[in-house]
């Protein structure tokens, strides 16, 4: 359910991205009005982050965590059901704002005050309540994950024997519970500022718009790790399976995830170097941010070391996983460039930033989801997917994605600002390349839909363990896994 919903949202958000790229295909205003363009960038960001990536991982968690720890279902199944149903409800409200007077929110997915308070459209209030509902949903989902992991593990499965996907989700859930309430608090302050005359973000009453950014990024930075940590976990299953070697440095992987999560609370102001925070603050946040490279480096090293001298085969999940490691590292490096405060003054709010976070989110989070989907599809449906088509999907996505986002680095370094519908002539070539790549990537995803539907409807029967290198409880049960798989707990040695 989660996965289907998230894919629908992925297509919707993707359509908006297509509108953006179509407008940017050539310089000048052609297709849409600038106001509508702003609404598109905002909704694209919100839908992709909250509607596509997060529910996809929650969906994977719902399906895989009970299987991996040997439980029948999540610990609190009804609450789980509620947190799912809240999502369509929230997005119904959010999307309805597109048809309201004054249009949808148009201030970017970061909804900085005072753009979103003093100058926001009337629909902002609806947007705020939609965020509240999503927040409730995520918190309940996270509580459920933690309760399941801590309480429903099979006998003998100690914490340090848990599969990495479970570990990364445990830490993600903790991050969610810690930061979603802060988001709820900040949108509540917005609501009060808009409708009840408070002055949290208005300096003429003694508040401060920068306060908004502090609170928002205190949520926002852990949020980006919420979107990537489960992908780390999934890749840590896939790479060993296709290298036919156990994962290199399991314990260090766990500690690295923990370290990333802790550091994520201490780096929020690196999104705000240019708003005028004190120099000591800039230095602190710069160093803290650079520190994150260490645990991330440990993880990349471990993945590479796992592949080293393994007997590798490259089925679709492995292709996505390897692309994940390589491209995520590129995204990480551009992150390091942005983390350096004096350099960030140059890059801030340019397409370089857009390139950076699309490199960590698309080949990071999204490729992680594709890899997991192909890896576990046989388990879910009981059929093998079409390997040729899946490989086509991979190569088209890979090429399209790089074509779309790599030129953005150059555009940003040359000084093209983000979130504008028009640009100077010298940026025309790279923008055209980028748009072509984006259309290619977007169209390719229909192929994914086709592959999944085909796989669900039939195909070669999958055995209980279709990948010979794979390990874990989920492969001990037949494919597809029976309803409420483990009604009595399995034994783990």
């Amino acid at each position, binding site marked *: 359910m989660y996965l289907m919903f998230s894919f629908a949202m992925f297509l919707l958000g993707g359509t908006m991205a297509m509108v953006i790229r179509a407008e940017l295909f050539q310089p000048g205003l052609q297709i849409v009005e600038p106001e509508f363009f702003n609404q598109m960038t905002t909704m694209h960001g919100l839908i992709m982050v909250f509607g596509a990536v997060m529910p996809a991982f929650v969906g994977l968690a719902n399906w895989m965590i009970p299987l991996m720890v040997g439980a029948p279902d999540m610990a609190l199944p009804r609450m789980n059901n509620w947190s799912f149903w809240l999502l369509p409800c929230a997005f119904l409200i959010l999307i309805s704002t597109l048809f309201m007077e004054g249009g949808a929110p148009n201030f970017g997915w970061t909804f900085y005050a005072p753009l979103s308070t003093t100058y926001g459209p*009337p629909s902002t209030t609806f947007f705020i309540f939609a965020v509240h509902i999503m927040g409730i949903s995520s918190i309940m989902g996270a509580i459920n994950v933690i309760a399941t992991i801590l309480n429903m593990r099979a006998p003998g499965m100690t914490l340090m024997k848990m599969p990495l996907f479970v570990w990364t989700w445990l830490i993600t859930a903790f991050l969610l519970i810690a930061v979603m309430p802060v988001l709820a608090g900040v949108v509540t302050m917005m609501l009060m500022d808009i409708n009840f005359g408070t002055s949290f973000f208005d300096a003429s009453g*003694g508040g401060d718009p920068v306060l908004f950014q502090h609170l928002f990024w205190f949520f926002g930075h852990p949020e980006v790790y919420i979107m990537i940590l489960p992908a780390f976990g999934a890749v840590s299953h896939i790479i060993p399976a296709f290298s036919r070697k156990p994962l290199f440095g399991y314990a260090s992987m766990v500690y690295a995830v923990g370290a990333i999560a802790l550091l994520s609370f201490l780096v929020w102001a690196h999104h705000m170097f240019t708003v005028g925070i004190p120099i000591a603050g800039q230095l602190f946040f710069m160093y803290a941010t650079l520190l994150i490279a260490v645990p991330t480096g440990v993880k990349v090293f471990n993945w590479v070391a796992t592949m080293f001298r393994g007997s590798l085969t490259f089925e679709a999940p492995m292709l996505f996983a390897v692309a994940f490691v390589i491209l995520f590292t590129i995204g990480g490096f551009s992150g390091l460039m942005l983390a350096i405060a004096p350099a960030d003054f140059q890059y801030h709010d340019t397409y370089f930033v857009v390139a950076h976070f699309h490199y960590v989110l698309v080949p990071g989070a999204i490729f992680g989801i594709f890899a997991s989907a192909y890896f576990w599809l046989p388990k879910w449906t009981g059929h093998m997917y079409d390997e040729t088509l899946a490989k086509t999907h991979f190569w088209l996505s890979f090429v399209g994605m790089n074509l779309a986002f790599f030129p953005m680095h150059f555009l940003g370094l040359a000084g093209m600002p983000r979130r504008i519908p028009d640009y100077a002539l010298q940026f025309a070539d790279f923008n055209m390349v980028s748009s072509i790549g984006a259309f290619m990537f977007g169209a390719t995803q229909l192929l994914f839909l086709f592959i999944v539907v085909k796989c669900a409807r039939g195909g070669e029967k999958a055995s209980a363990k279709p990948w010979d290198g794979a390990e874990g409880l989920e492969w001990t049960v037949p494919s597809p896994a029976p309803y409420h798989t483990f009604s009595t707990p399995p034994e783990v040695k």
Partner: protein
Amino acid sequence: MADNQTYYVPEQSKWPIVATVGLGVMLYGLAAIMVNGKQGVETTGSWITFWIGSAIMVYMLFGWFGTVIKESRSGLYSPQMDRSFRWGMSWFIFSEVMFFAAFFGALFYARVFAIPWLGGEGDKGSTNMLWEGFQATWPLINTPDPEAYPAPEGIIGPWGLPLINTILLVTSSFTLTVAHHALKENHRNKVKIWLSTTIALALIFVFVQGYEYAHAYQDLNLTLQSGIYGSTFFMLTGFHGLHVILGSLMLIIMLVRILKGHFTADYHFGFEAAAWYWHFVDVVWLGLFVFVYII
């Protein structure tokens, strides 16, 4: 993990969908009330939407918790379910802590950074040029732009009503603990007395808080609109007040359940959850008393 029996998987339930519809309709109505009210459009329809949503929510709460209580009373839950509920409740309280942390963060940021900067001190003192002659004080009795945000004429001192409220809440935490111990020892009459006392204290607290708000609005011109002091003051105490009301409702439901003869000396997680929540509300108040009223 030693005592795992077979897992308990509950029946499928309609309540989650009812809850979603209720919450969605309620919040949609609320947003419509605000938006239309601001534009001066008729809000009757929005109010109707809001009340329909609220009614569905109330129906859902009774239904959902009713089902859980029934299942729990018929002994369907294993110790494992009990632990799941415990984890769930603890993390829920943790999320509430973070919610309040956001508002405390806003308070500290305004006091330590934003206000002094506006007054010309520190790293970003140049922002003083926006409103020349603005004096940074806390409590903020002059706002940078008095026309947009008229300043309060006075603030609520800590040693009057707030002190009484502190005593009320701390006492109520004690009486609740006494009630809990009595429940463990199966003295049911004692439980009823002490739990009722707790609820009475809670209601007095809410009343005093309401009286204090009226005083602030009518006599001191301390309102939500009176600059950042009023904003943080009312948001922090207001959200705390809502949590007190919610906590009191939980305690009242526990009292009803006790009167009906629910709970045993060994198994009474519903009661414990309400008690945890109550202690959390109490601790938040202590933070408020120190940082909002005294300092």
